[in-house]
């Protein structure tokens, strides 16, 4: 799951946890899911890097990124 989607799901979980209709067991299940997502998101972040490239369109219409 992308960082973006992890964050979106986490936002959802926080919102659901605030919903009082949820029973404790469901809440704890969501919490577990959230903790897992947080861990994944941290891993995702660790992999990210800052780079600079240039987009090149090849003759066959496909694309390539060359490093600047």
């Amino acid at each position, binding site marked *: 799951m992308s960082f973006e989607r992890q*964050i979106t799901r*986490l936002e959802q979980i*926080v919102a659901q*946890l605030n919903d009082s209709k949820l029973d*404790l067991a469901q809440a704890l299940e969501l919490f577990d899911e959230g*903790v897992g997502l947080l861990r994944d998101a941290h891993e995702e*972040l660790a992999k990210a890097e800052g780079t*600079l*490239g240039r*987009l090149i369109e090849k003759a066959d219409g496909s694309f390539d990124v060359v490093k600047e």
Partner: protein
Amino acid sequence: VTRAWDPAADRAYDARGRRDETPDDREVVSIAELTAAAREIIEGAFPLMWVRGEVTDFKPHRSGHWYFCLRDTAAQVRAVVWARDRFRIPAAPDEGMQVLAYGRLTVYPARGEMQFTVYRIEAEGDGLWRKKLEISRKKLEADGLLDPDRKRKLPVFPRTVAVVTSPDGAALKDIIAVIQRRKAKVRLVVVPAKVQGEGAVKAVRTGIVRACQWGEADAIIVARGGGSREDLWTFNDEKLARTVAASPVPIISAVGHETDITLCDLAADVRAPTPSAAAEIVARSEEELVQLLADLRARMARTVSWRVESARNRHRAAGRSIQHAAAGFTQRAKHRVGALAGRLEALSPLSTLHRGYAVPRDLEGRTLREVAEFAPGLAFELLLRDGSVRATTQSVRPAGEDEQ
């Protein structure tokens, strides 16, 4: 006519033939005299006249004077409307308006500038560019392309950002500088495009389309550094604005300076006042993202611990009512036990003893019920109503038999 060589006269000229005067001989003119003279000449040479131009840099001064520039594609002249002349002019001209101005060319000595003193202004329709801009804008509006509802949210963490701009422009340099300063974890991919002059509209549109087709960009920045209105004109093109609006990838428009608003800005999902500002929008440092995650965790933990706490409280309350119920039960049980005890009392062998019977028990306290349990010489105990008697068996005679 030839003249004999005069060494003294020769010394009076330098190598370039200029006469070597002593300071006393020089005729010095003050700047004020110079500008006054120039003013006289210019005012004398030009009659009152009409000029055609576009109003730019319009600045109304506190004193009531209006300062601006009159320009066409090739040249410009500073212009002023003095407060005392404003009554002849119905309204201040708009920036960019094409006008006919009636006045006199003069020199403004305090600045040493040529200045056109304007007495009357007549708008020549709207400025052509403004007119065109308005038409394009109305068309885009009619198609709903400028609706705020159409704006998409940018991703929280745009990992790959395509930058459609000139590869050698100031805009790209500014963007890279911000990304580096913020140590942002973003992959910038430049999509080179000509951003001004002929062919620029097509180049920028192609750049956007390519960035979308490439498919890896989370967001696109369309950037152009500051410039004249003509330079930025590319970004007021209706077709370009339509391409921006149609992009499946969210677009940040960053054209010119803060005060320049183009159709591209209006059609984009986000308008950044400058290319640097656009970079700030996509530049997320690791620290910021870690903070974001920490906030989410804290919010989650808060709601969950609140839930656990409230469950615990409910539990406690339930526990208290159980105790309460139990206490009542115990009380009732005691009463019942008391009542039962009364009834048991009635059935107790002790009450039988009260009636005059005795119970034989062996020395370990077991009740002896049958003669078979006795043997001559066996010691036993007789339990009576007020105590016990130690006894020894003399002889045993089962019922129906003679005594042995």
